[in-house]
Each structure stands twice: as C-alpha cells, then as structure tokens.
C-alpha cells in the first residue's frame, strides 16, 4: 500500500533520503535548496542521526565525507555557487571512494546569478566541476515523485559503487508541489563490507567487481585514506604503474554497471522523425508540446535521460538518421553529448537563460519549424 501526499520537491528529496537511511547531514544555507537542510535539522535527531550546519559549503562537504567514513549514510544539499565550493572535496570523495549524495538545486548563474529562478546551468559542472579524470553519476528528476524515488536510488548507487552521486535538481522541481505516491518501501542498498580479517583487508583492492569492500572507521580495520594517488593499500604513491592501475579502476569502475545506472524515459520513439531530448523541469513542457505536435500529425518522440551522467550515448546512438531537438535552460550543455554521437548535422537546440521556463508554445513552434524541413 502506498501513501499519497502533497509534497514539495525539496521535501520529497529529504523524505527519499530518510527512506534510504540517511543518518548524517551537513550543509550551509542557500536558496533554493534550504528546505532540505531545514527538514533534516528537524528529523535527523529524532532518528538518532546528526544534523550539523557548517561554517561554509567546503566544510559541509568535508563533514559529510568524514561522517560517511564512520558508516553513516550522508547527505548535503546546495545550489550553484555552493556547488562550485563543493567541488574540492567532491573530488576527494570520488578519489577516496567514500559514498555520499550531493543535491544541487540548480539556479541561474554565473556567479550569484538568479538565486530564486530556475536553470539547468550546472550540467557540465556536475560532470567536470572537480579537477582530474573521474567517474560521475548525476540524476535529474523532473517531478516531485522522482525527487523522492531518485534520492533513494542516489543513495543506493553511492553505496554500491562507492562514489558521489549528484541529484541534479532545479528550482522548478525543488519548489514544485504535487501529489506523490510514497511506496511502502523501496530497495535500499548498503556498502559492501569486508569479509576478511583486518590483517587480510586491502582497502582499495583491484577487486574483479572494481568496487572494493569498505570498512568503516572504528570497526577494527585500520587503514589510510588520502586524496593523493594511492595503491591498493591506500598509501600514497608516485609510481606510474601503481597510479595507472588505480586510475584505470577508478575511471572505469562504473562501466560494468551502466545498464543499471543509465535510466531514461521514452515516448513515441518507434516512428519518430524528430526526437526531443529533454531532462529535469524542461521535460515537463516538452511532454505537452509533443502531445500537441502528435495531434497535428507530426511524428515527434521524447527521450528523457533520467541519468544525465554517465550520459546514455549508446542508447541514443540507436536513433541514427533521426533529427534531434535539445531544449535546455542553459546555453547548450547536454546538447554537446548528443552532438558527440551524431555530429552537428540534424541536432537542433532551443535555449533559454533568462530565468523563465521554456514554454509549451516555444517548443511546439520549434518542433513545427524543424519538422517543416524533414522530407
């Protein structure tokens, strides 16, 4: 039996984190994500967990990693400018393979930008905001229901794959209120613990799964954690052969699991001559525009990546020969990934960066325009 509730996206995200078993939150107030911190401040101490408001965004990310190392499922939430500050320790969590979830409720940028207006401005920052080559998982909900379900999934991915997972929300889905069906329960994953004795434990082992077992601090497995390039024993190294082995595993560790990580929704693709690829808040007017276009007899379909990173390139490659339209609330970020698959030919953009949602009419007009050139 599921429970229906009227909820705000940020609230659904917080509730999803609780359903996933979050026990630690560190954060710093920032619009439009603050509700998540406020809910955590109220609920975590009731559950035996801990909420702490840190002195800044950098410290919040650091505290989240520290807490996760003791075994607590850990969360922080922020928005554009705060996300920029998070990048230092976000990279640290990836390099040291400490599970955690970072919510970024995107707002307009650059800099302080448009604090209360929506944008999808941090798509590339989510992937490449921290320095160095690294894997990345980022999920993009387009409804309040998805804010809930994907936050649970974000924790599951973080725990299973020992990495940072970004919930790439936006001001629209964060502040939207709509009906949510709360499932009785969703599957919850926990990090793989060592099965060997402490003297046999290799903390960053080149496990065939590519995901080494993780011991929590205080459980008798004493090991070293460093952001320096390290060997399987966790100790720093500058040796090229050890470095290469470590970075190969780190950068490829999601590859065997892409089928489960890459999530998307599709509609009317079978006969679609034009595929609109949209995500997050932009997918909402796109859906309406596609329905209207279909009523006009235009063969248009929807491809909505739910997992933005790793981008489902192989999946969209199946649609070679079709036209693509990528509407985004940025100056063209994820469209680059579509162009990487098909080249510039046949890939159209529709962008808006003034803090207003792209409207159904704008999308429908663009669909008509593109379709008028289809033979």
């Amino acid at each position, binding site marked *: 039996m599921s429970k229906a509730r009227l909820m705000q996206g940020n609230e659904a995200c917080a509730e999803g984190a609780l359903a996933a078993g979050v*026990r*630690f939150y*560190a954060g710093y107030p920032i619009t439009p994500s603050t509700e998540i911190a406020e809910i955590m401040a109220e609920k975590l*101490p*009731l559950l*035996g967990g*801990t909420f*702490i408001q*840190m*002195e*800044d965004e*950098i*410290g*919040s990310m*650091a*505290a*989240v*990693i*520290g*807490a*996760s*190392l*003791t*075994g*607590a499922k*850990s969360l922080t939430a922020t928005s554009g400018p705060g996300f920029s500050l998070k990048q*230092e*320790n976000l990279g*640290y969590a990836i390099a040291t393979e400490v599970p955690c979830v970072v919510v970024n409720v995107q707002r307009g940028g650059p800099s302080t930008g448009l604090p209360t207006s929506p944008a999808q401005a941090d798509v590339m920052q989510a992937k490449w905001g921290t320095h160095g080559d690294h894997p990345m998982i980022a999920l993009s909900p387009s409804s309040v229901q998805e804010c809930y379900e994907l936050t649970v999934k974000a924790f599951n991915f973080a725990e299973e794959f020992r990495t940072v997972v970004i919930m790439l929300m936006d001001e629209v889905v964060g502040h939207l209120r709509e009906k949510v069906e709360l499932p009785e329960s969703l599957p919850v994953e926990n990090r793989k613990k060592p099965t060997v004795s402490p003297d046999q434990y290799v903390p960053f082992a080149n496990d065939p799964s590519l995901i080494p077992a993780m011991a929590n*601090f*205080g*459980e*008798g497995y*004493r*090991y*070293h*954690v*460093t*952001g*320096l390039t390290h060997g399987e024993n966790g*100790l*720093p190294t500058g040796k090229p052969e050890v470095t290469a082995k470590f970075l190969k595993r780190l950068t490829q560790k999601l590859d065997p699991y892409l089928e489960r990580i890459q999530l998307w929704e599709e509609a009317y693709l079978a006969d679609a001559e034009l595929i609109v690829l949209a995500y997050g808040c932009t997918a909402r007017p796109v859906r309406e525009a596609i329905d209207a276009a279909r009523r006009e007899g235009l063969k248009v379909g929807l491809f909505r990546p739910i997992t933005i990173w790793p981008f489902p390139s192989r999946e969209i490659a199946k649609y070679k020969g079709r036209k693509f339209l990528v509407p985004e609330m940025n100056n063209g970020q994820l469209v680059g990934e579509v162009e990487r698959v098909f080249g510039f030919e046949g890939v159209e953009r529709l962008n808006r960066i003034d803090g207003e949602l792209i409207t159904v009419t704008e999308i429908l007009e663009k669909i008509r325009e593109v379709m008028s050139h289809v033979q």
Partner: protein
Amino acid sequence: MFSEIAEYFRTETLPHMWCPGCGNGTITAALVRAIKTLRLDQNKVVIVSGIGCSSRMPGYLDFNTLHTTHGRALAFATGIKAAKPELDVFVVMGDGDSSAIGGNHLIHAARRNIDLTAIIINNNIYGMTGGQSSPMTPHDKRATTSPYGNLERPFQLLDLVQAAGATYGARATAYHNQLLSKLIIDAYNNPGFSLIEAISQCPVSYGRRNKFKTPADMLLWQKEHGVTAGRRALKDEDFLIGEVFNKEAPEYTQEYEKLRQRLKGGER
C-alpha cells in the same frame, strides 16, 4: 627508543619523507607516546590531517588515518566526531594549513567546542611548497614570498581559538617534546575543543633564510625562548610553554546527544 612505540607505526612506510633536521618526526613521536600512555584502543583512534609536510604524519601511523584536503582537516574531523562520538579524534595540521586556508574551520571548531584534540605544528613557513610566508611567519622574517622580510604580523593562535570558544590551549616545542606529550594527554582529557601549538623547525625552508646555520641552532632557539609561566618575564622572541588556558563549556556532541534523548522523551 623507537622500539617502544613501533607498534603504533606502519613500519613498512618508513623511512619518512621529512628532511633531515625537521621537527615533524619528534612531534609524531610525542603524539604516539601520549596515545600509548593514554592506552587508547588503536581501533578507536582516528588521526586526521590536512595538506603539507606535517599532514603526511597519519600515513605513517597505524590507526584509522585520514589525509584530507588543504585546510579542511577540522571540517572532516567534525563530521567523524559528530557521527561517531565514541571515536578518539586527533587532528594534525601545519600552520599555513590551519590558520590561512583552514582558518574558518579552526575558529568554528573552537566555537562549537567539539571534542577534538588538534595539534598545529608551527614551523612558521609553507615547507612543502618550498618556503613561502604563512600567517605564522614572524614580522620581518624572510620567506620566498617575503624576500625583503615579512610585512605582516603573525596570528596569536591560542588567543585566537580561546576567543572563539576553545576550552583548552597549550604550547610546547620539538625541543620540549616530553612536555608536548604531557600536554597532548591533558588536551585529550579535556572534553571539548583542545589546541596544542607545537613549535617546530624547518631548517631547509625557514632556518637557512633566517640566520639559523643548523637544525640544532633552531632547537636551541626553542629551548632559550620557550618559557614556563611565572619563570621569568617574557621578552623579545620569548613565548609561553605549557598550559595556556583550560576552562569548561558545553561540548557539541554531548549537547547533541542530550537533544536526541530529550526528543526520545517526547519533548520538542
């Protein structure tokens, strides 16, 4: 003797990377001796560090060890202690690490009075990057980025954290390393944020530029200028060694636990 404390080291990681004459090794031994005297459970001890020469220390030690990002050690340690208060958390930082890039985390850890035992190894310089001036480089002293002498004035670290709310502060040197061990024990026993300023020597990046011919000259300088309270009036380059302040205030993780218990009882 090293053999007395070898059980607390990852001996396969030795020899350490520090330069001959550096004070980091002496201070590492003082910390380990304190932990041995306290008979702490190795599995429950966490040593957190930032970035810099001194922050390489945890890698050599056989505890739960965390070598973090530049300046952020106390923020990581805050997460560890807040999530699992039963762990004994020591934080080792350099002077640039803790007081420049990490200055915000330093004052806020002190303000929360969270039960961490922090040691700032102060060698008055950025050693790992080759001798740039730090917020602890004395006025007029030379560094690669203050080639004509430092125009700025250094922090008074213990005054700073005391004003911010820390409940224990003490100072010792690499020369006064037995005193340092004793102060680390006292700091550990203080239920709150404790800071020990461990004055150290960097003969390569600081000493050479500031008229110290040998590392021994720097240790003799520590011996000469480190003064126990009440022994004599401080002059010139003198500084106090020993406990500088020790007071009581509510500790963060205990207060948080009280909140959990209060909520469990139905009170809001």
